[in-house]
């Protein structure tokens, strides 16, 4: 197998890096401080085709493979995790359409999404249904008889990344009767997926959370009160929602792993630069073995997480049967690495790492989310262990 990036992948990565260093890095601290969605960064990513990476060429995208999308998310997250998430979420929330949408649906929505004219959010989690996805209570009922009838959506979704700024929302709702919830198999056929458009009557943004990290990325609670959805907005078959959600996460978790690797790399670079400049006892602190060892471990761990991510993305792109395992493993390792490396970066900077004069405290706060969303680290371990024991 090829164990290097292709020329195209390296060229796209480098282009995103230059754009990011010049245009996004100077904004990162302010984005965190203001906790406002960076529309200017969204425009920048759109105008340079970065948001078009995950979409097929036939629908106005660049047709980038998963690894290329991850390279871009990594580079952006190196300087601003909030900005990296704009691309990661655009990819995540478009996956239901990519995996299960009809050609007509792709024609209808992908060109706007690829051009960044529209943003899309992924609404799976509910207040009482986090790790236990199938416990969702948001419900869609047919508005009338017949297979083509509209749907009426009622319920709410919580912790929806970019839910308050998205034009489209991929919503997962129960379409089965309550009586069907008895067996595990039936539990996994209760959900269906719908595209809600923000202007549909009955849709509302209930509130936006105050968060520890990724503060510029609005995390919203969304309300659906009798939202009338045309059947043409249903993605995939009735009852296919759980399957679509799981297949989506198999492909999207590497995006979060890429965000985590980027955060770790950014913190490592700040720590290494600081350690060579900061003098104590008459010499740069990087000369002290305890600091040098920390930096070496941070670099080695970040590179290990990166290589697992690249391998996972390559395997998933190639259609590996154990995509769930690769996807869970790369997010598990990358998320824990980001947390550890950013914590160590703060340690290397000492008191200066704890104040907002340097970006590492922000990176440490940003890192935490990568251990939580798109499945907690505990869920990743569950997925990996299930794949392991199922083979025996």
């Amino acid at each position, binding site marked *: 197998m090829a164990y290097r990036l292709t020329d195209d992948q390296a060229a796209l990565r480098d282009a995103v890096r230059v754009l990011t260093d010049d245009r996004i890095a100077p904004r990162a601290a302010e984005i965190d401080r203001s906790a406002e969605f960076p529309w200017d960064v969204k425009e920048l990513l759109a105008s340079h*085709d970065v948001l078009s990476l995950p979409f097929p060429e036939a629908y106005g995208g660049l047709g980038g493979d998963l690894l290329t999308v991850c390279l871009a998310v990594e580079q952006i997250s190196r300087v601003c995790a909030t900005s990296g998430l704009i691309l990661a979420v655009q990819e995540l929330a478009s996956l239901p359409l990519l995996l299960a949408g009809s050609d007509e649906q792709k024609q209808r929505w992908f060109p706007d999404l690829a051009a960044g004219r529209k943003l899309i959010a992924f609404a799976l989690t509910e207040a009482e249904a986090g790790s236990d996805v199938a416990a969702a209570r948001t419900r869609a009922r047919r508005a009338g008889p017949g297979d083509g009838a509209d749907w009426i959506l009622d319920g709410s979704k919580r912790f929806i990344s970019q839910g308050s700024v998205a034009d489209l929302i991929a919503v997962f709702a129960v379409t089965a009767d309550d009586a069907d919830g008895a067996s595990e198999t039936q539990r996994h056929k209760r959900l269906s997926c719908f595209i809600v458009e923000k202007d549909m009557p009955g849709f509302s943004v209930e509130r936006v959370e105050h968060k520890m990290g990724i503060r510029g990325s609005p995390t919203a609670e969304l309300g659906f009160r009798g939202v009338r959805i045309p059947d043409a907005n249903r993605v995939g078959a009735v009852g296919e929602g759980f399957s679509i959600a799981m297949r989506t996460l198999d492909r999207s978790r590497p995006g979060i792993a890429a965000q985590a690797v980027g955060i770790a790399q950014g913190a490592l670079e700040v720590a290494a630069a600081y350690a060579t400049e900061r003098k104590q006892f008459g010499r740069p602190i990087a000369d002290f073995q305890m600091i040098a060892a920390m930096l070496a471990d941070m670099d080695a761990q970040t590179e290990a997480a990166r290589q697992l991510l690249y391998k996972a993305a390559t395997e998933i792109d190639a259609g590996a049967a154990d995509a769930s395992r690769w996807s869970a493993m790369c997010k598990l390792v990358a998320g824990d690495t980001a947390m550890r490396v950013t914590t160590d970066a703060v340690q290397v900077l000492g008191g200066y790492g704890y104040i907002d004069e340097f970006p590492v405290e922000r990176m440490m706060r940003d890192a935490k989310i990568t251990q939580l969303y798109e499945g907690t680290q505990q869920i990743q371990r569950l997925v990996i262990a299930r794949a392991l024991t199922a083979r025996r």
Partner: protein
Amino acid sequence: MRIVVLVKPVPDTASGGERLRLDDWRLDRAAVPAVVNANDEYALEAALKLTEAHGGDVVLVSMAGSSAPETMRKALAMGAASGTLVTDDSLGGSDTISTARVLAATLRGMEYDLVLAGADTSDGGAGVVPAGVATLLGLPYLSYAAKIEPNPAAQTVRVNRISPTGYEVLEAPLPALVVATQALGEPRYPSLKGIMAARSKTLETKALRDVPVGDVAVGGAAATTAVLGSEAPPPRAATRVIRDPADEAARQVVDFLAERRII
């Protein structure tokens, strides 16, 4: 309209690793990654804006080493349509006259309305190649342009030329050669689609024998200048930076100069 932009790959000054070879005092181009000369990017940006406004296309012409195509792809990614690279082992070590002769000979075989060039290159820094090319081709030479306004219908171009007291307005018939400045506007970042499209754009490579330089000697062997030696500048003394408001900063600067009896 068709605009030719002269571009040169130069060592990336941001890398901090530029150095001369110890045996012949020539730039060690293998030591540092190459980038498009920054002033050429301003010329390219100006050319792209002009073709966006007036129609037409931008083509690149370069004389450089054999690794130049990778760098020229970056200029193609910004939006140039195609490029021609003259590369030949015998051209290594060329002086500015040789370079101007080769570029002029390359342009002789092409059709164009305007030639745009950067003010100078970050490696050689001579800044005379564009004037040499214009002279050899008999083209009007409009330097230090802060504004370029072609009039394709009248077949003229008007340029605001930066002068010590402001600017002069010059007009010349097309085709003409214009030296761009940074006042024309920041170069764009290539879009990702631009990068992908650049992979399939035509980049023609020519050897010296493919270029009609005529009955003159060019290249390293014909160089009229020679570098006899090179020394690094002495390290600068400690720099004091004053960041206070203007009034306070001015007072400190006056005190600093007065202490040293400079004023």
